[in-house]
């Protein structure tokens, strides 16, 4: 289904969505950090820089209460929200991140805490000339209920699910020709990062990157954990048990495989006891292990770790150094 919407249509659509969903749309926080914010009927900033916080955080939050054990020993789950989430303004990389994490949490044994938030949620993609400075964002061609594509005048909308079609059905048909032009332009856009990561992945899988390289990278790491916390495909968590007024609350909190205690055994022995080993493992997981497990890289090219790393050793930077030093 291909439709087209005016700005006014969009506002009306969001108003209707907000009746059934907790709708979050892109906006600017106080210092202009781009973020998903609750739809208030007025503020909308679809066009702009990528969202800073990974959208997967809405289904897998930094602190995620799982259950409470009361003094009688019975357990209760957190109260369900009345409405499911609807996330709007997700670019192709954001949507790939959600798909990646969906697959992880849905794999046997399925993760009920994640699925409770995710199952009825609505995803709205963003493509076309809607990037920073009207930069062209490629279409996701799926991975969401429908995708909004900006052609510099109006919004084309492509539905990928029945729910998406239901929401769009009332709008006028869009121009397939116009959509194809945008697709073509997006295809012509070079994607050096994707090629870089593939090359780095091949070098890692062929064991062409020596340990000394990881020592040099790890020496520049200040162990902030930011690369993990911002990564849309990172799913590691640890358990936090806390006393509350009503009992013991168990939550899961984001973990970081760059931390020493991530793999430390009770004896103190740590198979990943150095920053060198941990950094190597993290990149190997994304670029060598994930292709074996899932058939694709564990990096969706969103660039968040490169922006969040205080010392400039995010995924793109590391891969660039790998290819420069060990590529052919």
């Amino acid at each position, binding site marked *: 289904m291909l439709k087209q919407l005016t700005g006014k249509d969009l506002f009306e659509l969001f108003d209707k969505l907000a009746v059934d969903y907790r709708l*979050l749309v892109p906006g600017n*926080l*106080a*210092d*202009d*950090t*781009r*973020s*998903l*914010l*609750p739809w208030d009927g007025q503020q909308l900033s679809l066009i702009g820089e990528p969202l*800073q*916080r990974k959208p997967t*955080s*809405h289904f897998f*939050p*930094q*602190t*995620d209460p799982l259950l409470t054990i009361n003094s009688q020993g019975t357990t209760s789950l957190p109260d369900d*929200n009345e409405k499911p989430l609807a996330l709007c303004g997700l670019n192709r990389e954001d949507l790939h991140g959600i798909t990646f994490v969906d697959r992880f949490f849905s794999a046997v044994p399925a993760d009920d805490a994640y699925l409770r938030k995710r199952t009825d949620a609505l995803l709205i993609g963003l493509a076309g000339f809607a990037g920073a400075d009207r930069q062209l964002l490629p279409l996701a061609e799926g991975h969401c209920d429908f995708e909004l594509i900006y052609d510099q005048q109006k919004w084309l909308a492509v539905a990928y699910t029945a729910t998406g079609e239901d929401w769009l059905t009332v709008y006028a048909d869009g121009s397939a020709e116009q959509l194809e032009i945008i697709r073509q332009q997006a295809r012509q856009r070079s994607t050096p990062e994707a090629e870089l990561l593939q090359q780095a992945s091949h070098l890692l899988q062929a064991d062409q990157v020596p340990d000394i390289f990881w020592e040099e990278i790890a*020496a*520049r790491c*200040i*162990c*902030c*954990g*930011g690369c993990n*916390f911002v990564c849309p495909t990172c799913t590691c968590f*640890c358990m*936090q048990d*806390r*006393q*509350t007024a009503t009992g013991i609350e168990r939550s899961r*909190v*984001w*973990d*970081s495989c760059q*931390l*020493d*205690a991530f793999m430390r055994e009770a004896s*103190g022995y740590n198979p990943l006891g150095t920053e060198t080993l941990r950094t190597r493992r993290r990149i190997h997981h994304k670029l060598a292990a994930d292709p074996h497990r899932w058939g694709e890289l564990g990096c969706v090219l969103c660039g968040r770790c490169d*922006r*969040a*790393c*205080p*010392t*400039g050793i995010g995924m793109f930077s590391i891969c660039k150094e790998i290819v420069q030093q060990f590529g052919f």
Partner: protein
Amino acid sequence: MNATLTTCPYCGTGCNFYLIGDENDRLIGIEPAGKDPTSRGQLCIKGWDAHAFVHHHDRLKTPLLRCDGELQPCSWDTALQVIDQRLHKVSAQYGPDSLMFLSSAKVSNEENYLLMKLARAGYGTNNIDHCARLCHSSTVTGLMETLGSGAMTNSLNCFEDTDLVFVIGSNTTEQHPLIGSRILQAQQRGTKLIVADSRRIRLAGQADLHLRHQNGSDVALLNGMMRQILQDGLEDRAFIEQRTENFSAFRESLDSFTPEFAARISGLSPKQIIAAARTYAQAENAMIVFAMGITQHSHGVDNVRAVSNLALLTGNLGRPGTGINPLRGQNNVQGACDMGALPDVYTGYQRVSDPVAKQKFAAAWQKPLSDSPGLMATHAIKAAAKGEIRGMLILGENPMLSDANQKLVRKGLESLDFLAVIDIFPTETAQLADLVLPAACYAERDGTFTSTERRVQRGRKAVEPPGEARADWQILCELLQRRGIPADYADPAEIMAEIADLTPSYAGISYPRLEGNGLQWPCPSMEHPGTPILHEEQCTRGKGHFSPTIYRPPQELPDAEFPFLLNTGRTGIHWHTGSMTRRSHLLDREERNAFLEINPEDAGKLNIRERQQVRISSRRGTIEAGAMLTERVPPGQIFIPFHFAEGAANILTNNALDPESGIPEFKVCAVKVETC
């Protein structure tokens, strides 16, 4: 979901982040501020975890009054009446100077100002101080003398403009991670890096030169370097002539510091000292970065003077990419000093002994004021142990773990007639109090904080405090009013307006102007844009003053009975006495127990294995901790972080004080190590 922009509660870097809250008024995460000039979308591990302690069940929720030896809940009315009457009773019986007020580098500028006002106008004493006494009091004393301002001279963005960074006594990547990362990035771009530190810290691994000089030998090292610079003719003669004074006396004072002499004291080779001198002096623009490794010595002020002399000698002052850059520890330690939570100055370093300043504050507050400087925190503990201080109010500090020689601190606090503590957790100090008041934490109140680069920034309330806890400024307003001082401020913005009226360097600061990226002081008028670099045309005091120094060894060095040098400090994971970070799950899991770093060579001689519990003793006490065998420390030295109550490094440390600044010698004392 909601997001509240605020300033990080940990170090003095001044990162901004958003507290992410859920629909139930609970904090569930942190998001770095993407456009903030300091954080730039990045944080350290503590920043990423700064929400985690806020809802911890240990938070103090009601006032607690000691009855029958136990701290028991009481009403706010009772608590405020008790604190007011008991402090007043001590003052009436023993005089105002029998009271001591300890303010906090963790509370806002407004709260520091109010406690300072309470001490001075409410109780008529200048006995007010805070933990800057333990970290950068040597800096404030030393740089006030040489430059006229004790603050960091340059800004954080200067790391992008410099040709060389000389880091001495600062483990920057762990203690100011988002500044350490700027240094690492600069080094990657080709900026030269000299690191002087006995420990092999992360920056040392990237340095062009790593000088592992003996703890406490900084004056010898720096004087040796400066003598060599003069020997080579690498000094900036024009700068010395136009911008400085007392050069001749200073030059003469360096005569004995030959490379060989400096090497003998510092444990370095003469070649290393010569190389460091030439590398530093030949850089077009060089920044000196320092912290506790320079300041926490019985000769801390001399160390700071030597640092200052080095910058003046080479003209590295008043320009982008240069300067003398003390990195302030707590998120508001700069502000607590600026607000006059010090025994000798009002806000903006206006001296209590200056009749004009005294008259100005007395007129504003409508109260008579004392013109004799009060006691330093470290002297006050000793005075309490001797019965000279009888009543104390401690706001958000934990001297039981943070001060040198815990036995003496305990004796001092236990000797008091009355001790009141305002805090967010039941700290080791609160356990000794007669009265404990529950405070709102950083995420639960509004205020301003001043970062290490003198940037005044907003802290904003995101959630309600737990139980009956109140914001410190609200508690202090109640106490001021009970002393008959009007304090009906509607909000902290009104308190800041009063501060601006009385403080020339903050005169242009107001809440509306702080929206955006804050303002760097001095900001003397409402039109002034703030000051990123100090001492540009001339120093704050006029001419930069060369201040000659002589080498004085630490007060207690290893000997046959106590053969190891104990170095203390912090790790990158925990914060100070651990009251917040040890209640943050991820941080607690990362470092759970007290430990000491010991060189494998020494461990081998003592048959100590990795993680083995060992006993460490000094002349003042004994603790136990797990051994971490590491080349980070040189043979003959052990390092213990002071975060852990169960293995408290400050049971061992020596409270030998710098005679001018009153800072204890945390970086050097003698200990022995034995297997348990």
